[in-house]
């Protein structure tokens, strides 16, 4: 018993308010591809990915057409390569990155995630080789995305890894200098990383996951913004209720698309990630939702509270709409991918410190932030340390995806194009953190990790 108004509401969400499914991501286990001979391992990896994901793009396009809901990205996540490559007698992991890139190109996906290592408590030989190869891997492949988990609430913060990642990010930027440090846009440093995240660049297929799985990431900041505008001057209860109902509807689309895709591909359905993911398109912005709530610009006083309300209401609505919610599931605040965030930075309303505060109440962290090219590795490590400390202490995921843009200063812009957008270069604190970072070792797990 659908009403004509309901049908029109759905059509409007897609046509005018940018409702889409941001990604269907196929997770693929590669542990069984490990081999002492790296060439044999890579042949197995290529064959397995192309076999399982061969139909992913076609199925995605069929569903998109049939349901009239755009599915922006079809992607693949794989077992952290450090675990697969660790068994190979090879010092050079570049062959693994190239194999992933080739397999992704063959099946037609734009990104493949999982050039990753989990080093929150310590770094194995395989982890180290992988991390050392990240700058080259990201510079000389197109589609490979990398992530490194450096902290968990249960293990604490591996400050050796944090220090190392500062240097890796600098080197990645320098190897992709002619493209404004694009390599860094494909590299995420995590605390409490989820194993079923469908969103790039941080997606990988965790070891607790099945052989293969379909995870879905929804979108829809534009739909939420219009709903907030329609709520007018209503009080906060009304606002939260409006967002919940809207998030419910958005998430139902994710559930439908995920279940349909999984059934057609013959793999289990994993989760819907109910994150609000913005795009650079005007009107598809998380910052604009916060501004629609009554803030003159995103970043001013009240922004953290507004984001907390938004994030919680999205979760409550989304959780009711899907049988399995997972991944990151919270509002994203990537600067370069959100027109409202970009404007707020350009107008001086939004600073790095406020962004850090905002990450206390949402997923995922300091995301797609460009800083001056002369920012030191130690400062980047210290930014990472602050961010993962928030995640560790608050038992949530946080992450850093930062671009020290080579040759750029505050006031300049970096241009990545497409969904990665453009970012104004933001200032960092001028005082050194080097003495803190060089200590090394591990920051112990917080007392509330002792829950058993």
């Amino acid at each position, binding site marked *: 018993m659908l009403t004509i108004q309901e049908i*029109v509401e759905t059509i409007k969400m897609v046509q005018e308010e940018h409702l889409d499914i941001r990604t269907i991501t196929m997770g693929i286990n590669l542990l069984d591809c490990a081999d002492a001979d790296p060439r044999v391992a890579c042949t197995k990896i290529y064959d397995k990915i192309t076999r399982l994901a061969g139909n992913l793009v076609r199925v995605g396009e069929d569903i998109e057409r049939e349901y*009239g809901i755009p599915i922006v990205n079809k992607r693949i996540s794989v077992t952290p390569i450090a675990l697969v490559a660790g068994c190979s007698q090879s010092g050079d992991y570049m062959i693994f990155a190239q194999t992933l890139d080739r397999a992704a190109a063959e099946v037609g996906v734009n990104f493949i995630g999982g050039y990753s290592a989990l080093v929150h408590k310590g770094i194995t030989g395989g982890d180290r080789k992988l991390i050392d190869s990240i700058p080259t891997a990201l510079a000389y492949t197109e589609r490979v995305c990398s992530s490194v988990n450096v902290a968990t609430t249960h293990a604490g913060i591996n400050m050796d890894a944090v220090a190392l990642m500062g240097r890796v990010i600098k080197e990645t930027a320098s190897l992709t200098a002619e493209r404004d440090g694009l390599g860094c846009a494909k590299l995420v440093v995590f605390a409490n990383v989820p194993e079923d995240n469908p969103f790039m660049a941080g997606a990988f297929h965790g070891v607790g996951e099945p052989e293969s799985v379909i995870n879905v990431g929804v979108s829809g900041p534009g739909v939420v913004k219009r709903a907030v505008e329609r709520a007018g001057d209503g009080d906060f209860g009304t606002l939260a209720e409006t967002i919940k109902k809207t998030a419910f509807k958005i998430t139902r689309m994710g559930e439908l698309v995920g279940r349909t895709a999984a059934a057609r591909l013959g793999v289990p359905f994993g989760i819907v990630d109910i994150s609000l993911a913005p795009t650079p398109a005007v009107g598809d912005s998380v910052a604009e939702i916060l501004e629609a709530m009554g803030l003159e610009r995103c970043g001013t006083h009240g922004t953290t509270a507004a984001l907390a309300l938004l994030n919680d209401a999205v979760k409550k609505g989304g959780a009711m709409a899907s049988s399995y919610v997972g991944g990151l599931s919270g509002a994203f605040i990537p600067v370069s991918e959100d027109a409202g965030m970009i404007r707020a930075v350009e107008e001086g309303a939004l600073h790095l410190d406020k962004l850090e505060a905002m990450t206390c109440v949402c997923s995922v962290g300091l995301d797609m932030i460009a800083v001056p090219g002369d920012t030191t590795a130690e400062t980047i490590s210290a930014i990472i340390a602050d961010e993962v400390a928030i995640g560790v202490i608050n038992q949530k995921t946080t992450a850093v995806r930062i671009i020290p843009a080579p040759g750029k200063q505050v006031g300049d812009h970096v241009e990545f194009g497409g969904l990665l957008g453009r970012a104004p270069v933001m200032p960092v604190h001028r005082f050194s953190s080097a003495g803190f970072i060089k200590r090394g070792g591990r920051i112990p797990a917080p007392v509330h990790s002792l829950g058993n």
Partner: protein
Amino acid sequence: MKYLNAGEKKGRRVIISVIGPDRVGIIAGVTTILAENNINILDISQTIMQEFLVMVLIADMEQSKIDLSTLKDRLIAKGFELGVRIDAQNEDVFNFMHRL
């Protein structure tokens, strides 16, 4: 509020929506394509929203000669000819969003 009847067969039903300025021949244009391809119309409803004609048809493709993808192409082409936007979508999209 006008309610559209839910038919007895599920899964093969599509919702065809027409949005645009009203003019002669819209219903004829759409229903001709459906009739030619043996697609049964279960319900039809229309209203005016913000000066635009909004027409919604529920159709059953059980005995259809063409698949949904081809139907979409033909409807979109007809919409272009008539100066309106026409689309056909699997009914599940709307049920999933608005009904539990």
